[in-house]
C-alpha cells in the first residue's frame, strides 16, 4: 500500500515536471501538427537523429521529439507512466520489463562487441586472450548493463578470464577510457568503435559475431498518436531506416 502511494506520488511529480517543461501530452492538435515522442537507448543517438530527420521530411506536420538515456532508465520512466509513443531498447531484457506497455516489439538492429585499443594498437593486441594479460589495463562494461552481459557471454564462450581494471556502467565510459589512453584496451560495441572514428582502433575479435545483441522497438499501447508511432516503426524497419543504421555499424535484424 505504501509502495503504491509512493509510486503514484512519483508519477504525479513526473507529470508535473513534464507539464513544466511545456511538453503537451495530447500532441495530436487541431491544426494537424503532431509531435511524436520517441525514447531510445543512448547507443542509438546518432542513428536516430538522422532517422528522425528523414521521417520528418516524409511526414508533413510531424515533429519527432527524441530522448536518449540508458535503456533501464527509459524502462523505469515508462513503468512510471511517462507519456511516450515509441520505445527503442538496447536489449531484450529492458523491453521485457515493460512488455505490458509496448505493442508487439520487433528487432530492428543488431550489434556485436569488438576490442578497441588506442590508435596504432601500441600493445599489439590481437584477440581476447591478449586481454587476459594482468599487466594491461583492460576496461569493460559491468555485468549489470547490456554491454557487460554480452561481454560475459563472449568471454565464457571463448573461455577467457579477464581481470578488468574497471567495470563501467556505460559503454561510452569504456570507450572514453580507451580513447584517452587511461586504458590499454576495452570491449565496446562495433557501433561505438565506428562512431569514435580515428580515436580508437578496432581489433578483430574472434567469436564476437556469435554474441549478438538485439535491439527491439515498439509503439506504446497508450501512445497519443498510434498511427504515426506505427509509421515510425515501419520506417525504421524499412530500407531507408535500415540504411542509416547499417552506416552507423549496426547489423541487420
Amino acid at each position: 500500500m505504501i509502495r503504491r502511494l509512493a509510486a503514484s506520488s512519483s508519477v504525479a511529480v513526473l507529470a508535473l515536471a513534464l507539464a513544466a517543461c511545456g511538453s503537451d501530452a495530447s500532441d495530436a492538435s487541431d491544426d494537424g501538427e503532431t509531435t511524436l515522442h520517441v525514447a531510445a537507448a543512448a547507443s542509438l543517438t546518432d542513428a536516430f537523429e538522422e532517422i528522425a530527420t528523414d521521417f520528418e521530411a516524409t511526414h508533413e506536420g510531424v515533429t519527432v521529439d527524441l530522448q536518449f538515456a540508458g535503456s533501464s532508465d527509459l524502462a523505469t520512466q515508462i513503468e512510471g507512466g511517462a507519456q511516450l509513443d515509441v520505445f527503442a531498447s538496447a536489449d531484450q531484457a529492458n523491453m521485457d520489463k515493460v512488455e505490458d506497455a509496448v505493442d508487439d516489439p520487433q528487432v530492428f538492429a543488431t550489434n556485436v562487441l569488438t576490442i578497441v585499443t588506442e590508435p596504432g594498437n601500441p600493445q599489439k593486441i590481437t584477440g581476447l586472450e591478449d586481454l587476459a594479460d594482468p599487466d594491461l589495463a583492460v576496461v569493460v562494461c559491468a555485468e549489470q548493463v547490456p554491454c557487460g552481459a554480452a561481454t560475459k557471454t563472449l568471454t565464457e564462450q571463448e573461455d577467457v578470464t579477464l581481470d578488468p581494471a574497471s567495470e563501467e556502467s556505460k559503454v561510452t565510459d569504456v570507450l572514453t577510457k580507451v580513447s584517452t589512453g587511461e586504458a590499454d584496451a576495452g570491449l565496446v560495441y562495433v557501433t561505438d568503435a565506428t562512431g569514435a572514428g580515428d580515436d580508437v582502433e578496432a581489433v578483430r575479435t574472434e567469436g564476437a559475431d556469435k554474441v549478438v545483441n538485439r535491439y527491439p522497438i515498439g509503439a506504446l499501447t497508450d501512445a497519443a498518436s498510434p498511427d504515426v508511432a506505427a509509421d515510425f516503426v515501419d520506417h525504421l524497419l524499412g530500407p531507408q531506416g535500415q540504411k542509416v543504421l547499417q552506416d552507423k555499424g549496426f547489423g541487420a535484424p
Partner: protein
Amino acid sequence: MRPPGWLWVPAAGAVLVVVVPLLGLLTSVDAGRLWPLLTSDASVDALLLSLRTALAATVLCLLLGAPLAILLARGRWPGQSVLRALVLVPLVLPPVVGGLALLTTFGRRGLIGEHLVAAGITISYTTTAVVLAQTFVALPFLVLSLEGAVRGLDPRQEEAAATLGASPWRRLTRVTLPLVGPGLLSGSVLAFARALGEFGATLTFAGSAQGRTRTLPLEIYLQRETDQDAAIALSLVLVVLATVIVGAVYARTTKGAR
C-alpha cells in the same frame, strides 16, 4: 531571546524538503529482501571499501588540512584570501569536474601521473585513487570547520601562554588545539561523511572494480541498472550511516556550546 514565531512556517518547509524524500526512500524498502541484499558479497565489499577509504581520506584531511586551517585563521601572509577561495572550490564543483581534474593530473597521461607511471607507480584504478578523490572533495569541510573554530577563539589565552614563555609549538599543542577540539572533531566527521558519499570523482577517476574501487555509492549506481530494490536497500545503509555519524557529533558539539 526568542525568535519570532512565524519563522516556524518556512523552517517547516525546509525540514520537509529534506525529510520527505528520505521518507520516500524508507517506504520503498522491501523489508523481506533487505537482509539478503545487504549481505551479498558485492554489498559487503562495497561497504567495507567505503568505510576504509573514507577513514583514510579523513586522516589525510586532518594531516594536511588542519595545518592549513590554522595558518589561514592565524597567519598574515600575501595571497591568503586567494588560497582560501581555492581550497573551497571543490565544495562547489560538480563531482565529474573534480574527477576530470584528478584524471588530467594523476591519470596515466596526466600532468603528474605520466611521470609516476614512468617511475612504475600507477594510481588509476587503485584504491589510492579512491582515497585521493575522497580527500579532494572532503578537505574543504575540514579546513572550513577548523578555521572557523580557531577564529572563534579568544586570543588572550594564547597571548597569556606566550607571555609565560611558551614556544609557538607548545602554544599550539597545549592551548589552541585542545580549545578547538570540538571544531576539529566536527570537521573530521563532516569530512568523513562527505568522503563516504563521494561518487562522481571516484567514478570518473578511479573506475569501478569490486573490492578495489567500487565504493557504496558506485555499487548503488550499478545495482540500479538491474535491481532498484537492491539499490534502495544499499541507499538506506548510506542514509543511516550518515545520519548516525553527523547526528552523534552535532549532539556533542551543540551540548558543548551551551
